[in-house]
């Protein structure tokens, strides 16, 4: 029907409506971000985690400016509701991400079951002390398949060397 299609079209708006109203949305996200700064890994609804990720990463970018920067302190003061975490942000979290390539947060979706149909997710700061949620892929460098392929690779490299020498000779 024409009406429902218009409801789906957002016309470029990227924000979700959480909590019903702009200040309520930011309050919810402040709580999520504070929880993230305290625990470094939190579980919440996918919508809240996804929205909070942007603000959590922006917070780190501001915190990298240092706690002497007035703007950074103002941002941190607004976003972190439990004030004992502000030193943690500037002294622990910001230095961790000084030479970071890519995003500071990781978002994992949790399985939706018949008992729990709510779309839940886990949001975590990278470099947290907990064991990883995803299994690390095991490499088998000494397995037969890898040794055989290594042999292929060595042959290829030798061939490349010979080709280069021939080229430089001519």
């Amino acid at each position, binding site marked *: 029907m024409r009406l429902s299609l218009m409801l789906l079209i957002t016309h470029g708006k990227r924000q979700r409506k959480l909590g019903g109203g702009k200040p309520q949305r930011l309050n919810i996200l402040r709580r999520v971000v504070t929880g993230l700064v305290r625990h470094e890994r939190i579980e919440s609804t996918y919508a809240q985690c996804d929205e909070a990720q942007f603000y959590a990463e922006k917070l780190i970018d501001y915190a990298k400016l240092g706690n002497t920067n007035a703007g950074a302190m103002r941002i941190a003061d607004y976003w972190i509701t439990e004030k004992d975490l502000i030193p943690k942000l500037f002294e622990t979290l910001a230095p961790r991400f000084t030479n970071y390539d890519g995003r500071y947060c990781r978002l994992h979706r949790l399985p939706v079951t018949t008992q729990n149909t709510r779309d839940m997710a886990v949001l975590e700061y990278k470099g947290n002390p907990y064991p990883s949620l995803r299994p690390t892929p095991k490499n088998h460098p000494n397995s*037969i398949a890898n040794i*055989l392929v*290594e*042999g292929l690779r060595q042959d290829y490299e030798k061939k490349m060397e010979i080709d280069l020498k021939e080229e430089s000779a001519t």
Partner: protein
Amino acid sequence: MSRLKALIRPSVRCIVHRRYCSTERVTNALVTEYRNDIFEEEKRRQQGMVRRLEKIEVVHVGPNDPGTFIMNKNLSTPYHCAMHISENYTKYSALALVNGEPWDMWRPLTEDCELSFMRFRDEDPEEANKAYWRSCALILGAVMETAFKDTFYVQLSRAPELTIIKGMFVYDVDLGLKNWTATKDNLRSLSLSATTMKSKDMPFERLEVDPSVALRLFQHNQYKQREVEERVRGGRVTLYRMGKFIDIHDGPMMSKSSLVSMFTVAGIHELPGGLYRVQAVALPHDFYLHNSVWNRLVKRASVPLVGDLSTAGAEESLRETRSLAA
């Protein structure tokens, strides 16, 4: 029991077979039967020597499933211990480590020891890999012995020990042919023969025998007789049997032929001495390589390897240096 008496004149090659009471030519089938009879006789004799059943304590020191087993001395093998733990150990263990030393899965345990099992996907599967490469060479030998028609008598010469990074294992064979090249269909049928051996799931039985028994067993193969003399260790020689195929080798072999997943005979080429060198490559179970990668590996293995690769002497010196260093 059948008895083949080979006449001394090699040109005549007549054999009197007591069971059939007729003169027959030497064929691989008859020779295999003869070898199996001797193997069985020796195996029964050795088992008969175990008069009293003594018990030994075997401690499983693997990462999972701790336990102590009370097993029979000189009768129980690591495979039997694996049967007591679970089916996965029997199906997927390639090699056993007894007090840290590589040990065949079907070799009887002789004293109280610590046992653990090695798989191809372990952190350090070096010994399992070497055992696998050796066993695949053995399978290749079995394939070559059974592949040809009765009119051709195939004598296996030697399986030189190659490193895995070379990308192939090899068996030198005396086919009694000249200027024979294998077609693609030939190679494919040989590979298929190896695959049927894998699906038959045959264990690699081990038997330590006196050199005289081994010489009698390999009566119809001069190359193997020479190898018997080279491979004497502590006055004994080790024989391995897979199904009906018997061969001589020192090193530990993997537990069963079903641990192979892909086996391709890559090429056969003639050596200067008249022998033929069969080259092949195989992949263990639980490893998957894409068709394109496998074809490249087969192509690499089909490049003829020329030269005297007899490493029986070199291996010995390696072992000596290792034992000196240890």
